[in-house]
């Protein structure tokens, strides 16, 4: 048994993030079960639906690389959606809304980062608490009812297509490229890697650990606001519920893509394929008639199995 496990080829296979395998398996399943669904237009629509998740995953992977976690995405999503759809700024222009949303996200991210980096509070607690405060606040302001409509230009942008590829998907792809370059080419990207590997060693080599963590969370808040804009454009109406499960899906996709706390082997493209796997997973589950509860179970099992996959490997290397 152990001889097989130690075989170099298998070791190499084990190093590939599970997202690629899951993606391939789901693609084959879909190809066998529903071959007619595999054309560019239909897939474009399915993939467009996960674009907000895809953007949010970029935020999640950034904070998970510095051994933290951000579960406040749901709250940011609701707040941005409320600000845009409730009509509290009548007649405001698009740049104003976008600027305001990004400012909200950045401010919340900065607060998260400050609490986690300076006050050393558990990231789970901070971001969960921030999220439920924001959700409670938004639901109070809107008395639990969906607020109103979203200005139509947002949805118009969302519906543009460039050849077969919808604009939100291209936007997500472009952001992913930017994030990949940012993490691999900039000084900050190297800081992120070193803090993730070992915060103490990073500290003693002169890396500003606190600042890196705070900045990572601030950026994550900013990206979450971008995700919120994409999400708001996609549903085109105000809502007090949509998007509450996105943070947890983002965690799942990130782990599936090979980025576990402090370890970034999956890079940026692993989580990218993690999100694509989720897009396909929902399609496959819907075609096989599995409902929402089944999807919840699948999410949980995927997180667990992917984490076990990495857990076993770490324990072996220790």
């Amino acid at each position, binding site marked *: 048994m152990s001889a097989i496990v130690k075989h170099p080829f298998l070791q190499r296979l084990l190093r590939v993030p599970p997202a690629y395998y899951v993606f391939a398996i789901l693609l084959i399943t879909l190809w066998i079960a529903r071959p007619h669904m595999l054309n560019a237009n239909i897939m474009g629509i399915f993939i467009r639906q996960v674009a907000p998740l895809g953007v949010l995953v970029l935020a999640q992977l950034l904070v998970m690389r*510095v*051994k*933290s*976690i951000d579960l406040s995405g749901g709250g940011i999503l609701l707040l941005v959606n409320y600000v845009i759809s409730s009509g509290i700024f009548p007649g405001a222009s698009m740049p104003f809304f976008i600027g305001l949303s990004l400012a909200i996200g950045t401010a919340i991210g900065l607060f998260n980062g400050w*609490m*986690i*980096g300076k*006050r*050393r*509070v*558990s*990231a*789970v*607690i*901070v971001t*969960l*608490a*921030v*999220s*439920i*405060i*924001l*959700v*409670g*606040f938004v*639901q*109070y302001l809107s008395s*639990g009812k969906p607020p109103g409509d979203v200005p139509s230009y947002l949805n118009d942008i969302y519906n543009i297509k460039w050849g077969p590829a919808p604009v939100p998907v291209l936007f997500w792809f472009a952001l992913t490229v930017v994030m990949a370059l940012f993490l691999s080419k900039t000084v900050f990207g190297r800081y992120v890697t070193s803090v993730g590997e070992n*915060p103490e060693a990073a500290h003693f080599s002169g890396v500003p*650990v*606190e600042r890196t*963590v705070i900045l990572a969370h601030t950026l994550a808040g900013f990206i979450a606001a971008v995700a919120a804009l994409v999400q708001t454009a996609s549903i085109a109406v105000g809502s007090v519920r949509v998007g509450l499960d996105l943070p*947890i899906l983002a*965690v799942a996709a990130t*782990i599936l893509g090979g980025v*576990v*706390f402090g370890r970034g082997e999956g890079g940026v493209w692993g989580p990218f394929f993690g999100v694509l796997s989720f897009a396909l997973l929902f399609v496959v589950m819907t075609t096989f008639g599995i409902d*929402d*509860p*089944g*999807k*919840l*179970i*699948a*999410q*949980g*099992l995927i*997180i*667990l199995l992917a*984490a*076990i996959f*990495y*857990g*076993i490997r*770490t*324990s072996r290397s220790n």
Partner: protein
Amino acid sequence: MLPLLIAIANSVYLGLRTDQFLGSENLFNLIAQAMPLVITAIGQMFVVVVGDLDLSVGSLISFTTAILALDAPGYVTIPAVFLFAVLVGLSNGLVITRLNVHPIIATLAMQYVILGITRILRPVSGGTVPDIVIQSVGGSLFGVPMPVFWGIAVVLVAWKLLHGSRFGLHLFAIGGGVANGTPDAARNFGVPDRRNILLAYVACSCFTALAGVFLAGRIVSGDPNVGLLFELDAITAVAVGGTQLSGGIGSLQGTVIGALVLALLSNGMNLTNVSPFIQTAIKGGLLLLVVGLQTRKKMGL
């Protein structure tokens, strides 16, 4: 001591502010309202003491009510509930200690799995709970309502486990090492740390299931959403009670008082007609405040 003072101040304020508060009906009601949180917080404390968190307790409560509301006799469902709780605790603990998965990821995943199963068992609230459960929660013995006996029994068992046994001592030892950045400290002194952490998760799940049984007796039916955000309330209660979330420091009486403070808070907010949405936000703010005041060395998770 501070939480106790807050609790007393809170009750005095409520007593002066509203007429209903000091009525014996509201006070007994308060105990019954607080009991699920008290039991869950005590369970959560076992895990917090070793420096971890169990985020799966909220859905486990919903799951318990759903099982109890199945169309089956009580002598089947009640043991089944605890069997499942032990299973959940065991799988949490095994995945964390043996398979090297971070506790937060493991219990978060477990939360979703249980939530999904609960929604399959009981998509909307309904069903009826066995009579014995309803009797044991709603009835009274020698003129004293049953929730009081529940409270005494739970606190006694938890006291024995945490402060009166080797198991509890070992938990504090493991947590103390974790909080000081030396997770191996307890193991180096011969404490079987994996086994004790595993048992802490099992204890947490069992107490949670007990809270679920109590809650099922209160609402007389199964409800897939009854445990929503319960894990945060439980963590808040533990933190308000002075237990350090980094592990190693804490006391049972603190946790009980913390849970009572939280229950008083929601009772007071209900009596003064605060919007439920604002109540959620206030609880979140309280959690942030309490945990923000604690200090620890580790950064991040």
